[in-house]
């Protein structure tokens, strides 16, 4: 579980970074588009990263 928490936090951090990049890139749009999009990017990026990071970290831990 500790490994999963680590993966979750790491994934959340990376997803947050992606969301920030999105928010910066979308600064031309209105606040709803900018921050709503950032939230959606954060959710999808986190969902994408979690299944990648968790097995990867576990595999490292098991090796």
């Amino acid at each position, binding site marked *: 579980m500790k490994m999963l928490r680590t993966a979750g936090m790491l994934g959340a951090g990376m997803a947050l970074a992606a969301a920030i990049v999105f928010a910066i890139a979308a600064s031309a749009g209105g606040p709803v588009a900018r921050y709503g999009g950032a939230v959606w990017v954060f959710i999808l990026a986190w*969902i994408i990263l979690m299944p990648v990071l968790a097995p990867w970290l576990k595999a490292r831990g098991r090796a």
Partner: protein
Amino acid sequence: MNEQTTVELRRPVVVGALGALALVGLYMGIVRIGSASWPHVVELLLTDWYFVAAVATGFGVQIGLFAHLRQVVRQNHGTRSAATMAAGGTATSTTSMVACCLHHLADVLPVIGLSGAAVFFTTYKVPVILFGLATNALGIGMMIRTIRRHSRMECAQEGRTDMAPGTFVETAGKETLPLQITGMSCASCVASIEGAVGNLPGIVSVAVNLNAGTGRVEYDPATVTPVQIKRTIRDLGYDAAERLEGTAALDREREARQREIVNQGRWMLVAWPLALVVMLGTFQDVWILPRYVPKFFGNPLLLFGLTTPIVFGPGWQFFVNSYRGLRHGVADMNLLYATGIGAAYLIAVINTFWPDAGFGGPEAVFYEAAALLTAFIILGRYLEALTRGRASEAIRKLMSLQPKIARVVRGETEVEIPADEVEVGDVVVVRPGERIPVDGVVLEGYSAVDQSMLTGESMPVEKRAGDEVIGGTMNKTGAFRFRANRVGRETALAQIIALVENAQASKAPIQKLADLVAGKFIFWVHVLSLTVFLFWFFVGYGLFFSPETRLMLTPYTLAGVGVFGFALLVSVAVLVISCPCAVGMATPSAMMAGTGKAAEHGILFKGADAVEAASKLTAIIFDKTGTLTRGEPAVTDIVPVQGVAAAEVLGLAAAAEVNSEHPLGEAIVRGARDRGISVASPETFEAVPGHGVTAHAAGHAILLGNRKLMLDGGVAVDAVSTDAERLEYEGKTVMFLAADGRLAGLIAVADTLKAHSADAIRLLHDLGLEVAMLTGDNRRTAEAIARQLGIDRVLAEVLPQDKAVEVRALQAAGRRVAMVGDGINDAPALAQADVGMAIGSGTDIAKETGHVVLVKDDLRDVVTTIEVARATMRKVKQNLFWAFVYNAVTIPLAAGLLYPWTRQLVSPELAAFLMAISSLTVTLNTVLLKRFVPSLRREPVRRAESTALAPVAGGGS
């Protein structure tokens, strides 16, 4: 820490230092951009080698550092926290690099409108650079410290100083945990469970069967416990329990399925009425609805009030399950549903309460999307639970054959006890109309037993003293007693159930592709959804958006939808329309139905791989003796000389052989008795090794044997020599009979073909297969049989140990070969063949070695085996085709590929409807396999034609 580890640790330090230097280079390169405009940046990228080299080196060294450290950690310090720290450290340094890059990019940020970020990075230039360099050093330091600490800890834990840190300890042994898993709804559930359990330490293998609702986990008991395995599965939102045997398993499986059907049915009762009202309310002002639907139905607040119970009632399970899955690092279908429902609902709520927030305004409340999406998904789950139950009907039928009560004799009385308490040696009483509780041998009584459920044989089989009876079969007419000789897991029924279960739980090679796709599907769908979102947000909306935009098959216009609402809508549609269920279910559901259908006909596939291999066969080899033939010689021809009756010839020969133990002699005696000829006892008898016998019987001096015996006895055989040559050409063994010094006739003895052998081979030819025969007999005999049966190729005079070599030779010639055999000596060939088929009357070893067991001793089941396999694989391919085509067509559609031309988008509820239809189509297509009828059953007239007791050559194997 040993010397090798020290050496290993020096490398990351060196590489890390190079990384830091590279960052400086990167900074110097980027800073040269200055306040360049984008075209100038592009120009720099194309012309300024220093800048390009600096950027490439910076990234390259970081990636190299990361990869190298990962390698070091994996090879030398295989502990989880070390890996985590290494990853964390590397991530930290990578993040710092990104920070540095952002800083450097501050000079160009104003060009693309990011003035705030530019100001920040310009203001704090020096701290950011220092932070970047410091975190690089910190990351590397963390890794080194962690690795050192774990090196010490591991050595201390092992109590050894000579062992390199992270040395693997071989697993001492493994155990198997059979599981009953409930709550799975689609292929991604299988991937989730396999992924989460597979991630536990000490797991050797995991195989989960969606349709059977079962799992099999091989694990190292020293590392992980069954409780941990079950808890992991339960944490994902499924119920897991150790699989029970027999009827208890049946009861539990049925209860779980009923529970799922009732639960989803109950949620449908909530979701559908509300969703339909929401839909009416949403479209209140279109078509003829204004005449019948009150205007207040379209009030967003009412729609909010109606949709909220759907999302947080029936739809809540998807949020809970996706959360549980994510906690274990797995993404499944629940996540697709949850994100789809959640996004649609959230947009609707925002547009209701904050209409000016830019999500499309009050015209774009997608309550009906969230409501109908949930309703369709629940409907899909409900239908899947119903149809999945049908797919596993065969196994349930087999399980239900096991009677619960047995009547055994205890002392002088008959006592009723639970069937699973019958012990070997118990005398069991069976009355008319009762099922036989266990396997055994009839002691007394007579009856006819219906074995059709186990063997597929439609006619009841007569049973009398000495005959074997099979547990689970139905006693029809009489009563009898039998002695139990196999009980519990040893009974034929239990073994058949185990075989079918194992076959249904196994995975065919073709499923690997489907598993690969289904397992990664959710991940890639999310990646695609994100990509689609970014494309429509940054590019597509600006280029293609039109106020005429409407949702497909609805009058809904999206004139007021903003860039975010538009991109989100497309992104959600992609999530919802994608259906890995259809891909994942395509193979296992067809395999289950196919192996179940085969079991109904007395054909037991040991694995899905055998089904696939059987469908691709191009050649089939039969063992001769015991497979094509009965394996015991019989009198086939009697040719008397003029003036002598055939019965007299056979009677005298039988009298001479009555005390013989030679197989040919026994065949003659049996032949005489079968024809009602009384056999006299000989007064004298003498065997002449290699030639025959001499005897005095019934007042005659008898010679019975080959030409040499006749020649030595001065008997001329010219009168029957033509017949003798003809019969020998047919592969039969000819024996001449002389009485009182004069030739009386000849008798031909040969092995006899089994019923339906020729029929089976004709049907195999009809299927386009090449048929070969393998035997240790001489070539002439073998070829004689081949002529009678129409066999294409004869492999004669093959020693038992060379049978596998012959199979291999055919395989080397490019053929996919099945071997049909029954004996111990066939086992290597059965194992070598692509498909080994052991016939029911054969030895246990042959059955254990074969990939397919034919319960009945009927060679036509070989034909049925191939037909079932081909029908199953046809169904698999159809399912896969439709599943892939569905996704290939609908996903681009949902992603807005046609939008620039049609100005129409797929709504989330339409996406949900299509998704539910796709998996339902696959399931229903599989259910059609239940209608499969083998050609033998379709052609009763042809089946009646048989070659029963047609004579062939004798001896050999």
